[in-house]
């Protein structure tokens, strides 16, 4: 059966778009759900990590002898227990999970201990003696790019340059995207605005710290229970780091208390396995919040220059951006994605974006929802806003005039198919929020945003049970409600009620490889595979009915949960339900299951426009978000509650990022606010209700028209809030977070000027 496209997206649904109760709801509100730290095993040990207090130092020696002598200590691992892997993709991961010749950031692991109690493990850490030779450090992206900055990696030469660099550098690579002639474009402009921006590093702030329970025997067979966005990834990486056969390690994903991209790599998992192997006992490791902040992956801090020119009548003639992102101690900041997405919302003749990936003495960044895009959008949409107001044009009108549409050659290369950007802008224009009156010290901001969305490797299995109900196994951890959406899609396709399908996240031994739940891919890709697996099962069920009736399989059709003769010529047989087919399956050929495996393509890009009102206290610089509306294209909302949740969540994380959240490093290169007290994510009372408008411009790449929705929603907020606060304060704010001291200072300087 081939994927059906256009015609089918117009089909009417029975269950898609309804809002049934979530399958994990009761377990989560009653505390029965098992998260990473909720698993125990007989004989289990507790693992803890010793971390570097220095941002940059040579590790001259590690003496574990006093710790090893402590009663109750069963294993200690250091860099000596991990061989540098041959696989290039694993080299940085290996050096990140356990420092080698140098520690590269405050919090970098140098040793791990497993002991019978946490208290003993804690005491053991104190007894490990590490001799450091402290080196000069750098944590700021612009400082790290300067000649003479402390170099993190000997031999690192900037890639992507026109001439081959002769000196070591902290700049990993330069990226370049765009088309047309930017210089010529700026000459055609009547007005050009150029501004510089900075954003602080922020953490995903998931509520559940990383946790796992590893058990590996002398025979090399291992099990790992872990809180992750991708247990197949964890399996592959850990097997590589420990030198295990992939099939010998079975990884089970726990319930997950948030990830937002931050749980798409490994930190403590290989350490727990290595400790377990050494001690020959199960080892549980749970990070403290302090460790989560210091040693997992926040997103990049950035420094950016954006220049945009337009004619008097509001046409953009040229756009240029230079983005500099530090991604922590190893290569791989999301600057390339920042540069690709920066101008994706606009139909431009002349556009160029350049990105520099920079290393600094900070923890290696990890993905954070639409990695790289929110910062780039902040810079670009701030300049767009200023241009519109200088031109005396309404911000939405200006954007509509220049917006990308179907057939636009995007700034990063591909030509767009049917997209929803203009629809979100038009709907924003007519939305009541856009027309509401503002009071004193209040301002309104608007911004749009883009995200690619991803598809990827997916494998699902759908089993018909003896009573005719369905067990659906997927391999993508459910971080945003995907089990409900999968059940809905299977139920829709099979024509049975939602509660006849139970979807689980299967372990790595039960299904073929599944990519991580990231890139807003799961409802798209695992959904697509679920629909196809259901169709596979339907084909088989029709075949069984045909067998019973003694007619050819293609003379049987499937309708509303029943196998029926396809037409009058097929014969007059009483339709068979799933339960009836299941009950006699042992007589008609055995168990019935549907399968589907694919490296999916066709994830539709998605766009959003956000409107936000804020109020600034001119005497303290304090910002209050008053009203917030998200308008976003979902392609097709399978379970609208969850879609709205994603929209609201993106806005809320954006509010935190824009106003208060930041990694604060001291002169000593140490993180000063490794806790939720001084790393200020918004609390419920900081927020207004986030209003949402779901738009559905079907994605031709999915049988039901689904586009990913999880990431686009965090792209516009930084810019929308900055525009709003700038309007409220009467002065343009170009640095995030717009914390009270910064806002107050900007107002003060503006008033004095």
């Amino acid at each position, binding site marked *: 059966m081939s994927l059906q496209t256009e015609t089918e997206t117009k089909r009417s649904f029975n269950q898609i778009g309804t809002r049934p109760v979530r399958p994990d709801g009761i377990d989560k509100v009653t505390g029965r759900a098992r998260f990473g730290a909720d698993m125990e095993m007989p004989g289990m040990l507790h693992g803890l990590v010793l971390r570097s207090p220095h941002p940059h130092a040579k590790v001259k020696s590690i003496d574990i002898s006093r710790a090893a002598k402590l009663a109750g200590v069963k294993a200690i691992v250091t860099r000596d227990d991990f061989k540098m892997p041959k696989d290039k993709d694993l080299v940085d991961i290996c050096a990140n999970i356990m420092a080698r010749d140098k520690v590269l950031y405050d919090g970098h692991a140098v040793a791990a201990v497993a002991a019978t109690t946490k208290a003993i493990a804690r005491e053991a850490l104190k007894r490990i003696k590490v001799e450091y030779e402290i080196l000069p450090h750098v944590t700021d992206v612009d400082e790290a790019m300067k000649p003479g900055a402390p170099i993190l990696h000997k031999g690192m030469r900037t890639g992507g340059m026109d001439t081959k660099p002769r000196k070591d550098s902290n700049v990993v690579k330069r990226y370049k995207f765009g088309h047309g002639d930017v210089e010529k474009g700026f000459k055609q402009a009547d007005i050009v605005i150029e501004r510089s921006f900075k954003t602080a590093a922020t953490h995903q702030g998931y509520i559940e710290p990383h946790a796992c329970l590893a058990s590996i025997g002398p025979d090399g067979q291992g099990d790992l229970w872990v809180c992750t966005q991708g247990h197949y990834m964890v399996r592959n990486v850990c097997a590589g780091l420990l030198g295990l056969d992939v099939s010998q390690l079975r990884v089970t994903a726990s319930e997950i208390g948030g990830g937002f991209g931050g749980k798409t790599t490994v930190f403590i998992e290989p350490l727990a396995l290595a400790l377990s192997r050494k001690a020959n006992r199960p080892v549980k490791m749970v990070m403290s919040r302090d460790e989560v902040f210091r040693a997992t992956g926040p997103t990049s801090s950035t420094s950016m220059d954006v220049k945009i020119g337009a004619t008097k009548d509001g046409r953009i003639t040229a756009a240029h951006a230079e983005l500099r992102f530090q991604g922590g101690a190893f290569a791989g900041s999301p600057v390339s994605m920042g540069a690709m997405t920066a101008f994706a919302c606009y139909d431009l003749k002349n556009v160029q974006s350049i990105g520099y990936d920079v290393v600094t003495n900070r923890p290696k960044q990890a993905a954070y929802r639409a990695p790289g895009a929110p910062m780039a959008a902040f810079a670009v949409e701030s300049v767009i806003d200023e241009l519109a107001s200088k031109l005396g044009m309404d911000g939405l009108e200006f954007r509509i005039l220049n917006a990308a549409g179907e057939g636009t050659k995007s700034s990063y290369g591909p030509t767009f198919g049917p997209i929803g950007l203009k629809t979100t802008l038009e709907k924003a224009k007519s939305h009541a929020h856009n027309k509401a009156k503002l009071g004193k010290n209040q301002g309104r901001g608007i911004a749009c945003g883009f995200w690619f969305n991803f598809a990827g490797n997916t494998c699902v299995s759908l089993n018909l049970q003896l009573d005719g109900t369905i067990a659906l196994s997927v391999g993508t951890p459910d971080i945003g409600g995907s089990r409900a959406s999968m059940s809905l899609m299977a139920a829709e396709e099979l024509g049975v009620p939602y509660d006849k399908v139970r979807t689980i996240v299967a372990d790595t031994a039960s299904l073929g490889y599944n990519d991580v739940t990231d890139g807003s891919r799961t409802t798209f890709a695992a959904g697509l595979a679920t629909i196809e697996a259901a169709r596979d099962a339907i084909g088989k069920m029709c075949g069984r009915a045909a067998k019973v009736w003694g007619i050819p399989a293609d003379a049987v059709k499937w309708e509303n949960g029943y196998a029926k003769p396809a037409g009058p010529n097929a014969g007059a047989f009483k339709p068979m339900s799933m339960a009836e087919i299941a009950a006699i399956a042992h007589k008609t050929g055995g168990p019935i299951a549907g399968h589907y495996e694919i490296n999916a393509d066709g994830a539709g890009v998605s766009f959003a426009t956000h409107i936000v009102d804020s109020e600034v206290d001119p005497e*303290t610089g304090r910002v209050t978000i008053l009203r917030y509306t998200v308008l976003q294209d979902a392609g097709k909302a399978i379970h609208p509650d969850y879609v709205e949740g994603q929209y609201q969540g993106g806005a809320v994380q954006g509010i935190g990022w824009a106003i208060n959240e930041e990694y604060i490093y001291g002169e000593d290169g140490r993180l*000063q606010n490794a806790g939720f007290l001084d790393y200020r994510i918004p609390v419920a009372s900081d927020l207004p209700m986030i209003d949402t408008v779901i738009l559905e411009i079907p994605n031709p790449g999915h049988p039901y028209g689904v586009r990913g929705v999880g990431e686009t929603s965090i792209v516009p907020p930084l810019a929308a809030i900055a525009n709003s606060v700038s309007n409220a304060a009467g002065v343009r704010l170009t640095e995030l977070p717009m914390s*009270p001291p910064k806002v107050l200072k900007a107002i003060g300087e503006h008033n004095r000027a």
Partner: protein
Amino acid sequence: MRFESPQTTKDAVALLAGAKGKGRVLAGGTDLLVQMKSGMAAPDVIVDIKRIPAMKSIKAEKDGMRVGAAVASAEMAEHAALAKGWPGVVEAADLIGSTQIQGRATLAGNLCNGSPAADSVPAMAAIGAKARVVGPKKRRDVLVEKIVTGPGKISLAKDELIESILLPKRPPRSGDAYLRFIPRTEMDIAVAGAAVSLTLDTKGVCTDARVIIGAVGPRIIDVKDGAKALIGTKVDKAALKAMEAACSAAATPIDDKRGTKEFRKHVVGVLARRAGQIALKRAKGSK
């Protein structure tokens, strides 16, 4: 580690006096437990005072209202007479943490923790609250501002504890108020705080005032010039402006992750002026 829940103040004091190693009083535990969890505190004996009836009550006395050392801030907010008579103290205690924290957090704990940013302390000091300190031999009533000597340091002996806090009776036409600045709406630590208490005569002229600022120095600061700026005036705009300036001048904050020096000096003045306006309104409203 030993955990004890004595039934009387006398037993509690005896436990502290007899403790081998470090003894610590446990009231709500919202500071102590956090410190223990993070490894900052490791007491040998924990003396829970929540089972002591005298420490769990709010009682009217001749000289004012006596709040037991184990009374949670939520209980204070629900006590009508307390909220009416000392709105500044009650609103300060009501700012601590969140609803959950307020079910546990106490005035005495807030005071004895010794944080320069403790919210209820400026408010208590502004109205002249007195802590009843009990030791094995004697008890003494001490002005709240005399308890904290520096960040995390208090003047109590190892075998002393606070049994209760007296909020002295308010003269007619008095009002008090407390405001703090935090970037969020709750679950945060004051970047600056200001409490104002004032009393008016029948003509509306301020006869007495106290202005106390917090989180802008190693301990709370009694801004005498701020009080002077109000006394003898009708607490008009000019007087409040002068009080604001006095507070900004008196503040000795540091630059840290929570705010810059410059920001804190400015904001503490703004808060004091705004608290002054509220205190004035309350003084005018009360008989």
